[in-house]
């Protein structure tokens, strides 16, 4: 019982921290593969065939992401792109397994400082209103991505 408050604190803090895992097939922020059992039999699509872009404009997302970075009170550096690739299940829940891709402004593979990637990932985790993908009147799982375009450590655009 005396450790309960510490455990509670850890429990609240841990979800914001990503497990950075490097596998032969790519780098991932999290490799847990929990799926909604109800979605196991649902089909798969890409975000663009089920209108699965996040329901905010790119400008709104970029502003919110940059505001989130500023709240971290850290100085970030670097220009280029950080992309998170992930799946949304047929109930509209983002799955924990998230691949991270990083390139320079000239699209060359690179690595930004881990604090910057972790902060972007923490912001990304606040996006919880993913659309339910529907194809031929049936809900489907879908693959999606979200890219943060960075200029001198600031988010200047979000894709798609």
């Amino acid at each position, binding site marked *: 019982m005396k450790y309960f408050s510490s455990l509670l604190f850890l429990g609240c803090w841990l979800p914001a921290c990503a497990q950075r895992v490097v596998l032969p097939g790519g780098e991932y922020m999290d490799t847990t593969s929990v799926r909604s059992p109800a979605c196991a039999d649902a089909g798969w699509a890409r975000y663009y065939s089920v209108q699965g872009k996040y329901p905010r404009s*790119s400008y709104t997302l970029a502003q919110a992401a940059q505001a989130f970075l500023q709240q971290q009170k850290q100085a970030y550096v670097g220009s280029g792109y950080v*992309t998170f690739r992930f799946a949304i299940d047929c109930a509209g829940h983002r799955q924990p397994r998230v691949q991270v891709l990083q390139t320079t402004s000239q699209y060359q593979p690179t690595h930004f400082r881990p604090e910057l990637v972790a902060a972007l990932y923490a912001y990304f985790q606040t996006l919880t209103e993913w659309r339910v993908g529907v194809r031929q009147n049936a809900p489907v799982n879908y693959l999606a991505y979200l890219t943060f375009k960075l200029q001198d450590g600031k988010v200047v655009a979000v894709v798609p």
Partner: protein
Amino acid sequence: MAKSWLWCLSLLALAHRGNGQALAPAKLADICGSRRYQDSLVTRYIENGAHQYSYNDPRWTQYCDSLLAVCPHVAYAYQQKAVPLIKDGKYAEAFALENRAAELDPHAWLAYRGFLKCIFTKDYAGAISDFQQVARLKPGSREMDHTYPFFEGLCNLELGNLQRAEVNFKEDLRQQKGPSGQQAVHFNTLFYIGVLYLEMKDYAQAQSYLTQCLKAYPQHPEANYYLGLIYQTQGNKTRAQRYLLAAQKALASGYRLNEDNIYYANYPRQITDYEISQALR
């Protein structure tokens, strides 16, 4: 036993001779430069190969790779191989291929790469550079239904280079209207010029262009939305609400900016229901 070995060896020798249609490297390099030969490969590996499948099917990429193994100078194969990658946000892989395609055949693929930079990766400076280069190669041409100055204007608008954007959009208008000055103008040109003047705080011009856009396409969600914002700025709440509600209704009814690639990536200034709801608060 020895007889059967000999028989096997002679069969192998025959098979090798049959395979002799494969060309020596030097000869292959020569023939690869031939447009006719390249076209025949495209027919065989792309049209009758990759295109028989979805671009998300692994066979799409395999066919592109097969073509490139035969002849690594076919720009179209690089561009086609990049199609699923750009739509999946795999920029490092996609742009390595797009760069090769643009290098091999700038007439065909430089403007397309500029389009990808402008709309997909929001690399506005890179897009302007591509469009300026290709405009020297193919003046007066178009990409994805728009003139090159349209994309330059869009990029300059997003970079905050408003005076340059104005020059670009005027050139876009000139090219679209043609020598007679009478041809129709794309509604999204009118829309973005409206947004440009809104950014310049020239509300009269902004209203004029957004209204022209709505004459061509009354359900244009963004034109209704930005016109609503202008009226809001001017304190005309009734009119503001009318246009914002029209924008909301248009989106709910499935109307969009009407560009082919909006399913893959948002166009600059594209909105969702969230932004309209915020403005209506």
